[in-house]
């Protein structure tokens, strides 16, 4: 993510086909995992594994959201949505993380109340085997999703991959819980469920907050704005950068820049200047969807005659060597 605005990136075609497949793969593997873990968790009496199963089930819901939002955001822009439909990805993120947040609270309250009520039994060791399978499956899904998501810069796919990472961690917690329970510390299985709940709570709040920030048109970081500022100032005849407004539209960024030029410049020259600024900025990354360059100038100082003449001559002599 960090280097995306400094380095021109080339995304291979195969990454896009891969990114299309990832949600489908995730959907079916999580569905299987959820059914597997919840039934084994229920039969062996492992609270941790059951909670982990619910976690996988919530991933299935999340992946469904991703599939739908990708379909919608691929529709592109039209008069109704002049900026494209990319933002639906953030909407689906907020929705999915809200569901996860509620699920986490249910898991936490259930696990804590079972610790407090006592009378716990150690779960059967079959549950241990299930948890190990889950860890391996989630490692594969996580790496796949992260690779594809970063390559095409899709917030929805990256969020989905992070889901799998959280899943893997929670399965690891479950393994420790089951081992601990069988060693005689019976409270460690519901304790693992508490950890699962906290993991879900953590991921859902941080990632949900991030999506909310993107939805209310939060700017790029100051560091990246400085880079953009430098690039604009490199262009000849740009006197000052008045403003740089940036916001995220799904996978891509939208830039509005206001630059100050000499008031004596002709509009046709200003046009070329804007094109150069736009070209330079679009070259930074293919993740920049569009750049709007707005020209402005200060008032020409009419009293200062020498300056005016100088400006006039400058206008005539103006020769552009943009490259």
């Amino acid at each position, binding site marked *: 993510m960090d280097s995306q605005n400094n380095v021109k990136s080339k995304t291979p075609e195969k990454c896009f086909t891969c990114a299309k497949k990832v949600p489908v793969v995730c959907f079916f593997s999580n569905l299987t995992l959820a059914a597997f873990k919840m039934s084994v968790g229920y039969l062996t009496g492992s609270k941790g594994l059951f909670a982990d199963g619910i976690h996988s089930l919530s991933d299935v819901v999340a992946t469904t959201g991703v599939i739908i939002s990708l379909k919608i955001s691929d529709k592109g822009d039209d008069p109704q949505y002049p900026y494209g439909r990319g933002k639906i990805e953030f909407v689906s993120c907020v929705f999915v993380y809200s569901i996860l947040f509620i699920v986490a609270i249910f898991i936490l309250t259930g696990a804590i109340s079972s610790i407090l009520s006592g009378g716990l039994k150690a779960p059967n060791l079959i549950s241990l085997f299930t948890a190990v399978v889950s860890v391996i499956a989630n490692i594969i899904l996580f790496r796949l999703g992260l690779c594809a998501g970063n390559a095409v810069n899709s917030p929805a796919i990256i969020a989905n991959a992070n889901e799998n990472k959280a899943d893997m961690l929670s399965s690891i917690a479950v393994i420790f819980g089951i081992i601990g329970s069988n060693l005689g510390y019976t409270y460690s299985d519901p304790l693992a469920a508490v950890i699962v709940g906290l993991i879900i709570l953590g991921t859902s709040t941080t990632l949900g907050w991030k999506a909310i920030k993107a939805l209310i048109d939060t700017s790029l970081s100051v560091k990246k704005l400085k880079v953009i500022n430098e690039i604009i100032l490199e262009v000849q005849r740009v006197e000052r950068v008045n403003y*740089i407004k940036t*916001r995220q539209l799904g996978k891509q960024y939208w830039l509005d820049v206001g630059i100050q030029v000499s008031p004596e410049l002709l*509009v046709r020259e200003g046009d070329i200047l804007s094109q150069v600024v736009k070209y330079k900025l679009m070259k930074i990354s293919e993740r920049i969807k569009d750049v*709007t360059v*707005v020209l402005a*100038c200060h008032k020409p100082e009419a009293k200062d005659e020498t300056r005016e003449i100088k400006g006039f001559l400058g206008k005539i002599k103006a020769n552009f060597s943009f490259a």
Partner: protein
Amino acid sequence: MRCTDCEACHSRVGWIGLVVSILIGAFTIFIGILNNSKALIAASLCSGIDVATALTVLLGLKLSGKPIDLEHPYGHGKAEFIVVGGISVLLIGSAIVLFFHSARSIYHGEPGPGQLLTLAAALVAAVVNETKYRYANCVGKQLQSPAIESHAEHARVDAISSAAVGVGVVCARIGLHFVDPLIAIFEIGHIIKASCKMLKNSITSLMDVSLPETRTREIQKLVAVVEGVRGINYLFARRLGQHIWIELSIFIDPDITVYEGKNIAESVKTNLINKLNHIGNVQVQFLAKAA
């Protein structure tokens, strides 16, 4: 006709609506749960919708007053859509839960609420909502604000639904126990419809939906009449909270100076700001186009 009294009412109507809706909502949901009246709980959810709409208006005013900063170059208006979206999801969720409870109680023939307390609560809610309707309707008519008028209409619906709760209680007393949950189901339909509309509105606004075509055409006309404008390259208008942000690209004479071009852009901007309401920002880009 406008008078100073009406202006004073105008600034108050949002706050009064909010406080009254919260109080009535809390009161009816408390009595509703206590006496197991599904219809009264549904009526309190209706007040929840009012709270959401009133909050939108107030939050919008507050957020648009917050200055634009480095992190939020487009202002904070969109936070409003997120809040409203969240509230509508909550309302849809609780309406669905209530629907299952109501359906179950009809199916099992559970006894309806016959207590006079429920009847009293329903009547209080009906009277308060009716008063709110008359007040808001007066302000809306005087100031010709469609937003306040629709707010008033909503209070009317609430008054009717509260009165219906009273009917349910009377029916329960004479032995028709299914009436209360049945009324609840009708009200749930209304809640879900209203909440879905709010949710859809906030999601499309978050996705930067364009203003309706009639509005954009109106804006285009205002741009085209300005002297020096040779054509419109594009016009994007989107809502950021209560305000409209316009991104415009116009064609002008290539042989004038940037200073003159900037003046044309400025007059386009002032024309739009003077003729239209709720304009948050206008960004005018000018491009050269030979005649």
